[in-house]
């Protein structure tokens, strides 16, 4: 049984959302509960597979495991190749957690339930595909597949300024993807491998064997991949699509987007850009450290001045992604472990934030801090969880975010002391805007306008929130297993980078 699962687990991971999407097409549009439960069970299955992966990934042998390989278009060097290492397993876990929570939260969707779940599961198929692909063509294929359903998800089910926001988001991310595509095609033809191939493992093997590109080429190619992938990360100043997009999106879409999609960017940098172009990376990463300080400080200040709660969280997300990028730029095992761990923690935390905001927004139809107030009286469950989310986000020990941010800060101190000091300062800004939000929305006297607000009742409504907060606390209190797992994937990358640095210095 275990052997059989080991052969097919990654294929299943991609196929389950695809099957859900396809099955939904054939279910009549008025059978809402069927649509909902089918999606939730699909999500649950991917969750079980992710847990299985977590416990069965062999941390001793390391490397890519559970490989699936099929010839696809041999004449173009394309193969369908899947495999995971420690980093991908962490990201798969994140995706399935957010998928389960998102599917549960979307039980509240009323219009065109069928179409909503079709798009949601198509998007998830794309995300899983990116995290498990070891072929650059399919990596790109799944990446675009994850972006485009968002257009309709936001455009139809969204709120505030949705048509503008969704168009901007789609075009921005596609443009970014195209820059990366150009970079990938140039890498493909650069002659790293004897015959051009999109097979990532073959390219990496060739680089490891000393067949990497010369420095001039790397210096030119790395920015293409960096800009392409950093658009979705999002790195300042390419972040402007993100807060508006998050704010306009319906709950599950914001959860997927801020929770998972944004992580595709930093994931792609770690998986593709750094190991293939290590010398280019060593050359350019200090600039990333500069830009991500802008993310942290600028994003934080903008969040401080927002009136719409989703914009607060949206800008806070781009601020937090600055920490991720700082960790990536640190080129230390500790810092990069911290970056990936923070991708995980922030994904769960921000999904929780958007789920909570979405929950009361469905009833209040406003997220403006000025209009809200005293919500703790009516919705104590939601309120308490929101406070917990805020505590996690501002880095209170006991939540996964604290551990990961600490790792990033310690890891990057040596190389970038100024950026690290700014990052620590960013934590203070974070605490300010989060506490301000909590006070304005949840504390204070009871507002008669919100008298009839309903709290989350019953296990079904509460489940998604409890799941997310539970994960945050679990890995906050006992982060070691996850960090060790991530480390197995990070260490080879850091080794490559340090070797490149040594060779450049000498």
């Amino acid at each position: 049984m275990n052997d059989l699962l080991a052969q097919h687990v990654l294929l299943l991971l991609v196929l389950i959302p695809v099957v859900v999407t396809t099955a939904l097409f054939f279910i009549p549009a008025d059978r809402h509960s069927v649509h909902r439960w089918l999606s939730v069970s699909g999500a649950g299955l991917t969750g079980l597979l992710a847990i299985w992966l977590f416990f069965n990934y062999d941390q001793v042998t390391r490397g890519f495991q559970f490989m699936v390989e099929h010839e696809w278009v041999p004449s173009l060097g394309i193969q369908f190749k899947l495999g995971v290492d420690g980093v991908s397993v962490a990201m798969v876990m994140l995706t399935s957690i957010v998928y389960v929570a998102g599917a549960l939260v979307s039980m509240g969707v009323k219009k065109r339930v069928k179409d909503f779940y079709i798009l949601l599961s198509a998007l998830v198929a794309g995300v899983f595909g990116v995290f498990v692909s070891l072929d650059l063509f399919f990596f790109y294929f799944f990446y675009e597949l994850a972006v485009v359903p968002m257009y309709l998800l936001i455009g139809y089910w969204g709120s505030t300024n949705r048509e503008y926001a969704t168009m901007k988001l789609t075009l921005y991310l596609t443009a970014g993807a195209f820059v990366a595509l150009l970079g990938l095609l140039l890498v493909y033809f650069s002659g790293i491998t004897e015959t051009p191939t999109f097979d990532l493992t073959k390219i990496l093997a060739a680089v490891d064997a000393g067949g990497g590109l010369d420095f001039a080429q790397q210096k030119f190619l790395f920015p293409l991949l960096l800009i392409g992938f950093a658009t979705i990360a999002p790195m300042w100043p390419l972040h402007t699509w993100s807060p508006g997009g998050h704010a306009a999106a319906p709950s599950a879409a914001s959860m997927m987007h801020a929770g998972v999609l944004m992580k595709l960017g930093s994931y792609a940098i770690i998986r593709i850009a750094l190991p293939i172009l290590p010398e280019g990376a060593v050359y350019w990463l200090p600039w990333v450290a500069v830009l991500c300080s802008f993310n942290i400080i600028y994003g934080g200040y903008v969040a401080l001045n927002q009136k719409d709660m989703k914009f607060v969280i949206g800008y806070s997300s781009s601020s937090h992604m600055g920490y991720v990028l700082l960790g990536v730029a640190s080129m230390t095992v500790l810092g990069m472990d911290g970056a990936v761990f923070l991708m995980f923690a922030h994904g769960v935390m921000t999904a929780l934030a958007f789920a909570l905001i979405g929950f009361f927004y469905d009833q209040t139809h406003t997220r403006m801090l000025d209009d809200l107030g005293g919500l703790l009286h009516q919705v104590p469950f939601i309120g308490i969880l929101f406070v917990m989310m805020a505590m996690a986000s501002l880095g209170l020990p006991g939540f996964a975010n604290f551990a990961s941010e600490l790792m990033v800060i310690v890891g990057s101190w040596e190389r970038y002391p100024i950026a690290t000091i700014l990052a620590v300062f960013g934590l203070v800004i974070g605490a300010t805007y989060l506490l301000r939000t909590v006070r304005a929305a949840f504390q204070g006297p009871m507002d008669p306008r919100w008298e009839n607000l309903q709290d989350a009742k019953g296990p079904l409504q509460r489940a998604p929130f409890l799941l997310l907060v539970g994960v945050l606390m679990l890995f906050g209190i006992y982060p070691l297993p996850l960090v060790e797992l991530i480390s197995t994937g990070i260490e080879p990358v850091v080794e490559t980078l340090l070797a490149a640095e040594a060779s450049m210095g000498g």
Partner: protein
Amino acid sequence: MNIDTSQLFAIFGVESLLGLLGLVLIVTDLLVGKGRLTGPATAVRTLAFGGLVAIFAWSFVLEPGAEGALGTLDSFALFFKRFFLATAVATLGVAAPYEDRLSAGRAEFPTLLVFTTLGMCLLSSANDFVTLFVGLELVTVVLFLMAAYRPQLPRSIEAGIKFVVIGALSAAFMVYGIAFVYGTTGSFEFSQISAVINAQESLPAGLKFGLLMVLVGLGFKLGAVPFHIWIPDVYQGAPTPTTAFLSVGSKAVGVVLLMRLVYTVMGPAAAQWTTVLAGLAALTLLMGGLGAIPQTELKRFLGYSGISHAGFLLVALATHSEASAGAILFYVVTYLFANMAAFLVIVIVSRTDDDNHMDRINGLANRSPFLALVLTTSMLSLAGVPPFAGFFAKFMVLRAAVAEPALVWLVAFSLLMAVTSLYYYLCILKRIYMRDAVDTGFLEISGGARLLLLLCMLAVFAFGIYQQPLVQAAEAGASSLFR
């Protein structure tokens, strides 16, 4: 010149059968229910459909290899013969729900279609400027008729006249060019012209000029900038089935001939033309990428979208490698499916009158989820979004072009223009899903139309996900150009 009949049939088998089919259709029209409108139309349409499908099926039995003085049946020709036959079948499908808008000439439409398809098949086999010109005239003259098919609509007449003028102009360029080529090389045959071209270090000015004029003539067919001006007006004015056929068939005619000319006739010498073709490609992409944005009429919109696709095809032509030739063949097939589906949807939503304003598709998702899904699929495929076939087509073109360092700028520019074209395709999606319907009438979709839409949609999906069979066919088709 010795002409051997059996050899001629081996090369032009498809054309002979199409000619026969056309004659049968004329006779049928005369014999069945003389003077009535619907009786002969149904008979002719059924017969044309059956005949075309049969010939299409038969073309898969044919083996490439026959070659003669007037034409060749290499795998490239065969690929395009199948393509044109499929286009004709799909056009009949688009025409069926349109038919009741025609007050006269319902039976003649399929007949004309068969004859113009004959011309197109002939062109795909042409290895001689004489065959080329005869085939081209056959195609164009019949298309004039099909464009001006509804004399009671001023727009249709306008489309016909514009098309005639532009067609005559492009033919004039062609003939002028052919004359120069003949004058400098002494031959009409591609193989001999090619030998002359590649025997010389640099081309004589007369030959260069002649080839350039031929290129201009074909640019009109393809819809390349600056020869694209006729497209929006003719697309808008012509009856929708004609537009559908024009947008796929006529463009493909340009593609076939340009490919023969660039890859086979000019061969390695075409490398000198890379800059010209790349410049044309960039202009065409720019026009297609920006021109479609302000459009409010569906067929004009698709006209500009077609210009942008011509730009991508030119990028591949400028690349001049076997990989890029394969990419073109893949591209036109995906374009066929996506475009035919889009035009059929237009016919269905504008059923009550001939207004094709974009409002017509507002709120389509509520009126008919099926049509909305089909149109979404075809728009996203045209935009080049995975998992649809159009994505892989663009991917193949760009992949081939990146291999040529001199063209990296063009690839970057095409990607930029792909973003702008994504914008306007998304605007269509916006109308489908995020606007309230302007029309509320019931959308009647006949069984045949439903089947055709379903087929197109499935093809776009299937070739987008599992590309290998079509890639193989395209590569086989392209390989014969390079022998």
